[in-house]
C-alpha cells in the first residue's frame, strides 16, 4: 500500500521536473524575438554585411542555427549527460564545474544555519509551549513579529557594522583569499569559521525565531488534543507524555517546514552572500546576472529547481514514514 504511494510521488516529481526543465529552456527566450540576440556582439563600426556574417557565426557558435525543437533535443541530451551548458566566461568553463566549485561554500553557510536554527528553535519552542502564557512565551511572540519585520540583510549589515567594524570580533567582509588558500588544514578551517560567523548569525536569527514559533504552536495544539488527556488518565509520567505522545505528534508538521527550508537552502543565501561578499552560489548567480551569462544563470536555475524537487520528494516520503495516516490518496 505504501509502495504505490512512493511510486506515485516519484513519478509526479519526474513530471514536475520535466515541466520545470522545459520552462527553463524557454525562459531566456522571453522578451526577444531572436533568442540569439542576447549573444550578438555590438555592431560597432561593422558594415551590415559583415555584421550579418558575425551574427550567423554567433548563432552557429551557440547552437541557435538549428530549429527550436532541435535545440530542445540537444538541451535534453546535454542534461542526460549532466551537462548544464557552457558559461560565457573567459575560458568557457562548464556550468557544472562552476557550480561544483562554489556549491560547497554555500552549503557551509546554509547547512550550519539550518542545524543551529533547528536545534535552538526546537528547544526554545518546546520551552515556550511548556511555559505558555508566561514571559518566555510572550517574548517569543514579540520576537517573531520583530524578526520578520527586520529583513535578514539588514541584520547582516548591523552585525557587520557592530561586530565587524566596531568591535572587530569577526571580519565584516569575507576574506577574498579564503577560497584560494583553503587546504583542509586546521588553520584554514578556522579562517573559514571566522568568516562564516557573521553570515551564519544573520541567517540563523530569523531561522531560530521561525522554528521556535512553529514548534511552540505545534506543541500547544497537540497538548490540547484529547489523546494527551488520555495519556494523563493512564497515569503515564510527564516525560513519557512529552516525548512519546506530544512531541511525536507535534514534530510532524515541522518535518514539512524543514523540507521547505531545505529546498530553499541554496537560493536563500543570495542576499547574505552579497552583503558579506561570500563566494558561494549566490554570488555566482549575481555575477552571471551582471555579465548576462545566460547559460550560467539558467544552469543554476535548473540546478536549484531540481534540488528543490528532490528535497520536496524526500521530505514527502520521509513524512509518509513518520505519519501512519498518510495513504495512497492525494495528501492535500
Amino acid at each position: 500500500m505504501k509502495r504505490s504511494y512512493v511510486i506515485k510521488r516519484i513519478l509526479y516529481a519526474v513530471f514536475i521536473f520535466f515541466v520545470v526543465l522545459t520552462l527553463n529552456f524557454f525562459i531566456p527566450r522571453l522578451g526577444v524575438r531572436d533568442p540569439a540576440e542576447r549573444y550578438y556582439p555590438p555592431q560597432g563600426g561593422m558594415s551590415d554585411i559583415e555584421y550579418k556574417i558575425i551574427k550567423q557565426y554567433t548563432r552557429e557558435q551557440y547552437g541557435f542555427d538549428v530549429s527550436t525543437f532541435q535545440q530542445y533535443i540537444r538541451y535534453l541530451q546535454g542534461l542526460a549527460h549532466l551537462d548544464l551548458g557552457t558559461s560565457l566566461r573567459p575560458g568557457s568553463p562548464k556550468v557544472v564545474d562552476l557550480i561544483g566549485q562554489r556549491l560547497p561554500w554555500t552549503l557551509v553557510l546554509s547547512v550550519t544555519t539550518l542545524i543551529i536554527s533547528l536545534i535552538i528553535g526546537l528547544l526554545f519552542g518546546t520551552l515556550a509551549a511548556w511555559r505558555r502564557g508566561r514571559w518566555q512565551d510572550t517574548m517569543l511572540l514579540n520576537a517573531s513579529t520583530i524578526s520578520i519585520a527586520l529583513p535578514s540583510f539588514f541584520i547582516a549589515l548591523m552585525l557587520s557594522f557592530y561586530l565587524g567594524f566596531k568591535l572587530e570580533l569577526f571580519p565584516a567582509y569575507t576574506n577574498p583569499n579564503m577560497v584560494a588558500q583553503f587546504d583542509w588544514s586546521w588553520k584554514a578551517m578556522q579562517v573559514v569559521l571566522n568568516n562564516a560567523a557573521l553570515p551564519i548569525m544573520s541567517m540563523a536569527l530569523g531561522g531560530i525565531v521561525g522554528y521556535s514559533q512553529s514548534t511552540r504552536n505545534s506543541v500547544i495544539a497537540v497538548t490540547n488534543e484529547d489523546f494527551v488527556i488520555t495519556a494523563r488518565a493512564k497515569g503515564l509520567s510527564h516525560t513519557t507524555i512529552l516525548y512519546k505522545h506530544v512531541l511525536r505528534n507535534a514534530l510532524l508538521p515541522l518535518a514539512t517546514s524543514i523540507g521547505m527550508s531545505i529546498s530553499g537552502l541554496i537560493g536563500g543565501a543570495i542576499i547574505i552572500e552579497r552583503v558579506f561578499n561570500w563566494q558561494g552560489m549566490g554570488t555566482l548567480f549575481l555575477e552571471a546576472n551582471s555579465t548576462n551569462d545566460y547559460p550560467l544563470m539558467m544552469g543554476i536555475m535548473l540546478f536549484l529547481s531540481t534540488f528543490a524537487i528532490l528535497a520536496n520528494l524526500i521530505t514527502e516520503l520521509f513524512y509518509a514514514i513518520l505519519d501512519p495516516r498518510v495513504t495512497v490518496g492525494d495528501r492535500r
Partner: protein
Amino acid sequence: MSKRRVLLQVARRGGSILTLFKKVWQHPKGRVGLIIAGFLVLVAVLAPVLAPYDPYDVTQRAAKGLRPSWQHPLGTTITTGQDILSMLIYGSRVSLAIGLSAGLALAFLGALMGVMAGYIGGFADNLIMRIVDVLLVIPTLPLIIVLTNLLGRSYVVIVLVFVAFGWTGLARVIRSLVLVLKNSNYVKAAELAGASRWYVMTKHILPGTSHLIIMNTTLTCAGIMVAEAGLSFLGLGDPTAISWGKMLAEAQGGGALLFGAWWWILAPGAGIFLAVFSFMRIGLVMEEIFNPRMKTSSSIHKLFKHLNNTYLDEVFRSMEDDEAAEPAEQPVRVNPFAAGSGHD
C-alpha cells in the same frame, strides 16, 4: 478544534470589512498597527510636501557625509550629499505602492484560483494545483533576477513577478476553505434550488472567504515589502527610483560601515521595519479576532494572578446548600409530563 471548524469559524466571524477594522482598532496591538500603517501611508502620499529637500539632489557636494543635525535630521549620504530624511520619506512611496498593489493583485488572483480550484474541482482543481506545484519548486529570488534581466529592471516587472508567483500561497489556503464551505448546508441548499455555479461562487462562497482573504493579504503585503527591500538591495529595482532597500545597498557600498555612518543604515532599516511590522500586527490581530483560541492563555494566566481569593471563596460558599430553605406546601398541579395526557 478540528481544522474544518477552525476554517468555518474564520469564515463566519468578524462581520463586514468595516466592522473588522473597527475591531482591529479596538484591540490595543491592532490600534498601534493601524496608526503606524496609516502614518506611513500619509507620509507616502504627502511626500513632496513633507520632505525638506529634493531627495534626488546630488549637487550638494559640500554636504556630503554629514552627521544628523537640525538641518539634516538624518544626516546626508557620504557619496552624494543627498538628504537622508527626504530619501526616507520618498522611499516610503515605493515600499507601500509595491506592497499594496502587489498584495491586492495577488489577493485577487489567489482568491480566484483558490475558489475555482476548490469549488469547481475536477480538472480545474487538478490543473491549478499542478501549476502551484511547479511554481513552488522554482526558487523565487533567482527567478526574479532572471526576469528583471530579460524584461528590464522596473518595478512593474517586480510587481508582476510577485503576483505571478505569490498567488500560490493564498490559493491553497482559500481552496481548503472552499472545500469545507462547499459542503456546508447553505451552499448545498442554494445548489439544490438551482442556483448557477457562478451565483453560488460569488454570493455564497466568496463572502465566506472574504475574511481569510483580507487577513492573508495583509500579511502578504508585509512579506512583499520585505521581499521588495531585498530586491532593491540587490539593485534590481528601477534605477531611478528611491527605495529603502536601495538606500541600504548604497549605504553599504558608500562606506557607511567604514565611516561609522550608522544613521544611513538605520533610517531605511527602521522604515522597512515599521512598514512590515505595522502590517503584520494588523494581520495578526485579525487572525486573533477570527480565531479566538489563538488568544493565548496568557490572558488566563493574568486572570489567575489577579484573582481575588475572597471573591472565589464567596463563589464557593454560595454553592453550599442553604440550611434555611425548606420545602413548602404547594397545591396539587396538573402534570403535562405524565404518560397518557396526549391532548393539550
